[in-house]
């Protein structure tokens, strides 16, 4: 109780300070009044000065712990009231067997959880798929390398054969392109697709 009283006094003191500071600054604005100027313009100048002073003081006040404490207690009160109203309504709705907000929220939340689990599962599967894709790509590259080596080995073997054979393989001796042809045919890697 004492704490509450002390807080109330602190808040009242902060408010009082806000107004006294504002009035002090406003006197500076009022002191700039010059009766020689057109009164409407002067009034506008005064008004603008006063509003600026008030805006500045309020900005400072809204940063004080006293204001924040007031804001907190007001919001707590509002939420408590909303909670009590809702509780009363729930009792009535329960009596009439009408679904209330929390029932609907519960259904929505359950749906969200299911959706979340599904999405996470899909995300996991996507991750696994990309790992598999990477591995498949690596395996494919490895297979291609093996194919090339087989081809190279075969082409290297062809001239040995051709030296012993007669006219059939004579083109092998014609130039460097010929063994490559043989390699391509022998490797036949066309049917293998890179994973997407």
């Amino acid at each position, binding site marked *: 109780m004492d704490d509450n009283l002390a807080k109330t006094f602190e808040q009242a003191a902060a408010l009082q300070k806000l107004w006294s500071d504002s009035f002090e600054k406003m006197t500076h604005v009022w002191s700039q009044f010059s009766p020689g100027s057109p*009164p409407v313009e002067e009034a506008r100048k005064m008004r603008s000065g006063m509003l600026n002073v008030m805006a500045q003081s309020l900005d400072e006040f809204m940063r004080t712990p006293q204001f924040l404490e007031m804001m907190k207690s007001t919001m707590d009160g509002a939420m408590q009231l909303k909670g009590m109203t809702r509780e009363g309504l729930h009792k009535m709705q329960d009596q009439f067997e009408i679904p209330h907000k929390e029932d609907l929220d519960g259904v929505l939340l359950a749906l969200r959880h299911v959706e979340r689990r599904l999405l996470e599962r899909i995300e996991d599967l996507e991750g696994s798929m990309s790992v598999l894709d990477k591995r498949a790509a690596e395996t494919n590259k490895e297979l291609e390398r093996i194919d090339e080596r087989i081809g190279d080995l075969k082409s290297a073997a062809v001239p040995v054969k051709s030296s012993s054979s007669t006219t059939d393989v004579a083109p092998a001796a014609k130039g460097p392109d010929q063994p490559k042809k043989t390699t391509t045919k022998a490797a036949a890697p066309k049917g293998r697709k890179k994973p997407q």
Partner: protein
Amino acid sequence: MKEDQSAVFDDMEAWQTSFMNEAFAVMKRAAALPFLPEKVERVRKGVTPREIVYEEDRLRVYRYIGEKPPRYKTPLCLTFALVNRPYIMDLKEGRSVVAHFVNGGHDTYLIDWGTPTRAERFLTTDDYVNGYMMNVVNFLRERSGEDKVNMLGYCMGGTLSTIFTALHQNLVKNLILLTTGIDYSSKEGLISVWTDPRYFDVDKFVDTMGNIPADFLQSAFLMLKPIQNLIAKPINLLENVDNEKFLEDFLYMETWLNDNIPVPGEVYREFAKYLFQQNLLTQNKMPVGRHTVDLRKITCPILNLMARNDDLVPVCQSEILNDLVSSKDKESIIWPAGHIGLAVGGKAQKDLWPRVVEWLSKRSN
């Protein structure tokens, strides 16, 4: 003596003239007042021709149609906050950010999040970033045939765009940010003060309210500058009600300012807790679903636009971003305007936005 008397008479005459002039001006203003409701009805929400190209739940994506076909293939995706409606980007003729990009040859799209209902109560930042934004970006990539898109985020939309870019850098070509909150350690802005965990229990608030009502958000924005918003602004309107140009700008702006929408409760909880209270984005610790946002993963060119007189997102909350990302091509502009003036202010429209369009054009395909 005679000189004194004549000086007094001169003063009195000046006073009399001033009062008479003011009386006539007041009568003129009073005569203009009955036409005010009619003018309010004439306010349009968005001016550049557009078509809906994508829809998902309440979200819509608009494509803006220029007089000539776009010159750049990379699509530009504009993302606005979840708090207000996005037509501020295309407010009226001569005050449209969208029009600058469309006339500059960019294929321009805008995400309209729609108005959340209780069904969206449990949507999280993850749903918005890795769900909706991801789907929109994939749609735009498919539609344009480009691997990447350009992104422009405004206010909270800028924070969402930054998070998206950090999580999916491979999909973003260039990032433009307007008044984007990143570092919440400073208490310069009043919202940062009010969301102090000692005075604001965000969990209790969200659990009680569900979606955060538009009225609550509107009141909070008004209270940032209560004297200007509740006293000076109505006086200013009354004094200029007979000025057509002023009145048109005022009505367009006020229509938008008062067109708040509720924010999904969970997104509000995450923004208040992770950003305003714990400042996790700058520490590269902000969780978004199962991911953690690491700003160092951003490598694309960045243009960071800030408003010097911004009372909602002060410069100190935005300018740190350029130091936190790994991008080599990064630029900041601090413009002498307010939070909204940066987008629709006369000077920004004339000088800033052509510069921004040029910056993007140099970096687009």
